[in-house]
């Protein structure tokens, strides 16, 4: 057999399809949704867990005095304060940790190398997974807020405050995608345990004012909260959803500006950290290892 004949025999008659990034992201979302939806019992349990954690604070709110909230510039409503705190904290936590979990799952199942040996780059994989995680997170977020509404949380929504809340939510998502990429880099390198997601979860719970206004922390601890984008997001969102403030509020503009600065500064850093971890893992041939 001549060389040309061998090439002809083995060659592909149909050229590979060039698939756009958006279409690949869509494919990831559909794939993950199908897997997620297979475990309907878990979808139900997850939503039950999210709703009961919100409902728990209905009872806690009955023994709380809202003086600290008023001093912090919010309306005197501990239930609404915690419903916003818990719902958005859970939203970003599930989205950020979900990204690391997605990588771990692919490594466990032995499909990570399969995906990356296709014409899909790691960045597209990360983007697709992030979009899916944030979509699922949004579902839980809406369910938690509706649950809050049912048990008596009072949201002060006007067109202006809703618009401001929407902008802050977009900034919240963008800033936490940055954290997610950092976590993804860490999990690629460390395999077991994810210090970024761990630190993010516990430090934000303590210092971002999820369950109490930051004014209750001693002065030397308050600066810790300033490191996390969730702190500014929660402050801004509470001002919109509790106080009805809009984009003309200096405090909300300040929160939005801090989030933008966080994204501008941290996005290149997280991409660089991720690249270093990714390249190093590839060199070691450990991309699919767990």
């Amino acid at each position, binding site marked *: 057999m001549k060389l040309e004949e061998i090439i002809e025999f083995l060659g592909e008659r149909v050229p590979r399809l060039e698939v756009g990034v958006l279409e690949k992201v869509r494919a990831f979302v559909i794939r993950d949704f199908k897997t997620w939806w297979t*475990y309907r*019992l*878990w979808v139900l*349990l997850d939503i*039950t*867990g999210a709703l*009961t*954690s919100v*409902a*728990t*604070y209905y*009872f*806690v709110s*009955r*023994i*709380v*005095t*809202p*003086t*600290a*909230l008023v001093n912090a510039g919010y309306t005197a409503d*501990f239930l609404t304060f915690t419903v916003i705190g818990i719902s958005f904290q859970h939203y970003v936590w599930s989205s950020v940790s979900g990204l690391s979990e997605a990588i771990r799952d692919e490594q*466990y199942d032995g499909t990570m190398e399969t995906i990356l040996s296709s014409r899909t780059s790691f960045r597209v994989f990360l983007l697709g997974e992030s979009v899916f995680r944030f979509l699922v997170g949004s579902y839980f977020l809406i369910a938690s807020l509706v649950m809050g509404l049912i048990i008596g949380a009072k949201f002060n929504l006007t067109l202006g405050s809703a618009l401001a809340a929407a902008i802050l939510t977009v900034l919240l998502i963008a800033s936490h995608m940055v954290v997610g990429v950092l976590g993804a880099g860490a999990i690629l390198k460390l395999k*077991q*345990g994810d*210090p970024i997601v*761990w630190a993010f*979860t*516990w*430090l934000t*719970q*303590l210092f971002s004012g999820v*369950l*109490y206004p930051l004014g*209750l*922390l001693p002065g030397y601890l308050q600066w810790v909260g300033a490191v996390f984008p969730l702190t500014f997001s929660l402050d801004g969102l509470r001002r919109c959803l509790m106080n009805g403030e809009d984009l003309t509020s200096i405090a909300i503009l300040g929160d939005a500006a801090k989030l933008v600065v966080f994204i501008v500064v941290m996005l290149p850093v997280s991409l660089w950290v991720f690249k270093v971890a990714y390249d190093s893992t590839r060199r070691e041939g450990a991309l699919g290892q767990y």
Partner: protein
Amino acid sequence: MEILEEDKPHVKLPLRQFYGVVWSSIKMMLAYKSWMIMDLLSTFASVVMYYFVGLQVNPLSLSQSGWGTSYLAFALIGVASSNYLWSCLVRLSHSIQHEIRGGTLETIAVTPVNMMTFFIGQTVRGYLVSLILLVGVFVVGITGLGVQFVMTSASLMAALVLFILMLISNQALGLIAAGIIMVHKRGDPIAFLVASMNEFLAGVLYPLEMLAAFPLLQAISMMFPYTYALDGMRRALILGASLADTGVLTDILVLSGFSVFLMPVGFVVLNWGYRTIRENGSTASY
């Protein structure tokens, strides 16, 4: 025959097997030091978090429910015991899931190690490790955050008895969860549901008296053994109640009832799960 024959007989003593299972799990756990540190710090962080939540609580509202004026003391018992219970409850099912995923459950099944010894060993290891966290939480609460408990020998004895009964009654639920996870592989629905309901309805973060306005929720909360354990431990450590206290005695009786009823059910479900996967040949699949 000569070549293949084993020189040493298999270790058949259950106690030695049990010791081997516990020790091997502890060695494995010690290999992940960063995880241990993270676990410790997270547990302490949750206590500190409730210290700040407690600053917003009106002591008068809490004392009207009969639990003194310190919310941190109230929440510390709830948070520490529910965290402990959660980690014990899921320990067995998580390790089974881990072995199945790692493909090593089959390997263990073909060794002379009795599977029940393996399961009990994993459970005990969970108790021991989580106990370190539990003690750490109380030490941080008492020495670092100034929580005051009534620590007489009578109240400590009552708390200890309730604690042991809490473990026995809830471990039965852990056995049921482990049996189900062996067959259904994914996740841990029973443990998750029990933990969520415990957190919500057993009064971990608020006095149970608040549920009086919601009879249905109150009735559901009475169906969980943890509700009685938490009530009794708070009576002992906050109010100084001893084993002679009527409230504590009632809690002990109810918990004993739960234990007697649930433990055999737990072992039956665990056996059923193990038998099913062996019959299906799905010991290694997940």
